[in-house]
């Protein structure tokens, strides 16, 4: 225990930064869940599998000699189209059925997409390129991996772009209005059905970002997003399932906390990170069911 304070500090700082990188991935996928929850009012269990599938598409595109960033953008477009199509074809017919029915439909998608991924690309683990160099930079005595910085920036950059879109564009406003009050939106001339489809499109694209950022470290395999989906859900619930800000903050928080617990609490270690996240999830739900940032509707009648 005679470690100099500076060493301890730099270790902790390293754990925090790599926690932030992982957290940014959870945040992206959590935000995807929230986007769909806000519009369709269900949690999309296939979100992770959709992300995995699109990450495999990115892998295929890159294997055909396309450079990383063009492949990245192309994948986002494909994911977006896929998300829109899924909503139009599968979700639309059950839109007005009970929540349970839609949830089960997304579970059907989970099973089918997971199988399809394994069928098309095989079950073996694949390496996935990272766009960032495998080096570290030293900032204030702390070695931070460029991979972590890049992951964090790409994920949060995507989130910021989305935020600007929702805040300032007409389409973004219309999508938000649909989330809050679909009936009133219809009276404003909004094609509500298409807004829902766009919501699924954006969610799928966000998932693709999360998948492509996660793949270099967790490696590409058909089940790679299952655990990340659960972290993302825990993050979304932590922040309040209807709060986009909450999803992002919850994701980052969870990433850092889990990383620190995993590194410094022996009992948790590597293996028990997921059960720990689950415990956090249950605790939050029991103490504060609407999460940290859950919506308190201010309304005067």
């Amino acid at each position: 225990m005679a470690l100099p304070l500076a060493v301890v500090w730099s270790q902790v700082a390293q754990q925090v930064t790599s926690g932030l990188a992982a957290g940014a991935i959870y945040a992206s996928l959590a935000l995807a869940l929230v986007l769909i929850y806000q519009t369709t009012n269900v949690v999309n269990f296939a979100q992770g599998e959709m992300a995995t599938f699109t990450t495999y598409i990115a892998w295929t595109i890159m294997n055909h000699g396309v450079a990383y960033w063009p492949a990245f953008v192309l994948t986002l477009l494909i994911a977006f189209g896929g998300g829109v199509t899924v909503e139009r074809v599968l979700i639309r017919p059950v839109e007005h059925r009970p929540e349970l029915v839609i949830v089960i439909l997304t579970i059907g998608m989970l099973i089918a997409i997971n199988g399809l991924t394994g069928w098309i690309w095989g079950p073996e683990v694949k390496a996935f390129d990272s766009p960032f160099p495998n080096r570290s930079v030293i900032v204030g005595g702390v070695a931070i991996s460029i991979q972590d910085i890049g992951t964090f920036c790409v994920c949060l950059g995507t989130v910021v772009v989305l935020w600007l879109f929702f805040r300032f564009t007409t389409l973004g406003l219309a999508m938000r209005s649909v989330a809050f009050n679909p009936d009133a939106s219809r009276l404003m001339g909004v094609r509500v059905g298409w807004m829902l489809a766009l919501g699924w499109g954006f969610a799928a694209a966000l998932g693709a970002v999360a998948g492509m950022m996660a793949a270099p470290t967790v490696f590409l395999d058909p089940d790679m997003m299952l655990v990340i989906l659960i972290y993302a859900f825990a993050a979304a619930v932590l922040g309040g399932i209807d709060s986009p800000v909450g999803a992002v903050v919850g994701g980052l928080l969870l990433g850092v906390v889990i990383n620190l617990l995993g590194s410094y609490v022996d009992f948790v270690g590597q293996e028990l990170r997921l059960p720990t996240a689950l415990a956090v999830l249950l605790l939050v739900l029991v103490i504060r069911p609407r999460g940290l940032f859950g919506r308190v509707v201010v309304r005067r009648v």
Partner: protein
Amino acid sequence: MRRWASPVLQGLVLAAAVVLIVLLPRFTSEFRLGQFTYVGIYFIALLGLNILTGYNGQISLGHAAFMAIGGYTAAILILGQKGFELAGHDPAQVIPEHGMRALFTIPIAGLVTGVIGYLFGLPALRLAAVSLALATLAVAVSFPALAKRFEHLTGGGGGLSLPLPHAPFGWDISTPHWLYYEAWVTAAILFVVAWLLVRGRVGRAWRAIRDGEIAAVSSGVSPAVYKTLAFGISAAYAGVAGALFAIQVSYINPDTFPVTLSILLLASVVIGGLSSLSGVIVGALVLEFLPIYAQAPPVLHLNFAKQAGPVVFGFVLMVIVLLVPGGMASLIRRITRPLTAALARKA
């Protein structure tokens, strides 16, 4: 006249099913028999899941974890302390006398899992349907990690090898036959229990809560009591199924009950038909045979990759959800209705 024609027909179908199950071992190979033993085990797990999801409206994606708890309970009891110490070193040395008779561990596994399920149901009360689904999925995903972490109990990743099961009390039947009857007699008992529960006061309370919690409260039903009860009973069923499963394969490790199984269990309940006890048998058949036949469709002489199973499973589930909300049970009922009507007219 119609009023009694339907129960009579139901009774006839049930009787035919019992005869079929009893006589089946005479006509099939031991390999096939093993498959039908799994059908019986799945039948039990699906009964439990249908009580929770179909009759009480709570989704669980964690039933494989409950099966695993039942399986480990049975395995640990069968090995006993001494057998447990030996199991790690040399499974061949383990002899049945070290622990409990396999048959007796089944109800205990059910009880233990039921209590754990009941306890899990308590915090679950505060969860909305969807959060519950994800919380239970998280349980199923974390269970293998937990099982590996508590190595001294579970044998870690290496798992626990059990002694090969034999028919007890000196019965002179082969092991596969014994396992088949063990599974199906248990299934029959639990079917009757489920039927009585669902028909009675408890079942009415469950359905009332599923159809509207507020209305249920105002008619004097306590959601907290009945929802946790449903969780406990459902878990107990899964625990029994898990124990039977572990005995059947005489081995258990953290991956014996994977997350995939949890998800497929829920899918099978829906495919068979939510809140339909007769749909459960269809669900159990689908769960065992659909992946096999999807991979190698009979007659067509095709052979697909292993993943064809889940793909077809997923698509069947989606088609059922989109087109046949009542599941296969309602489809069968729709097809047989003309027959029932004809019978009623004759009578």
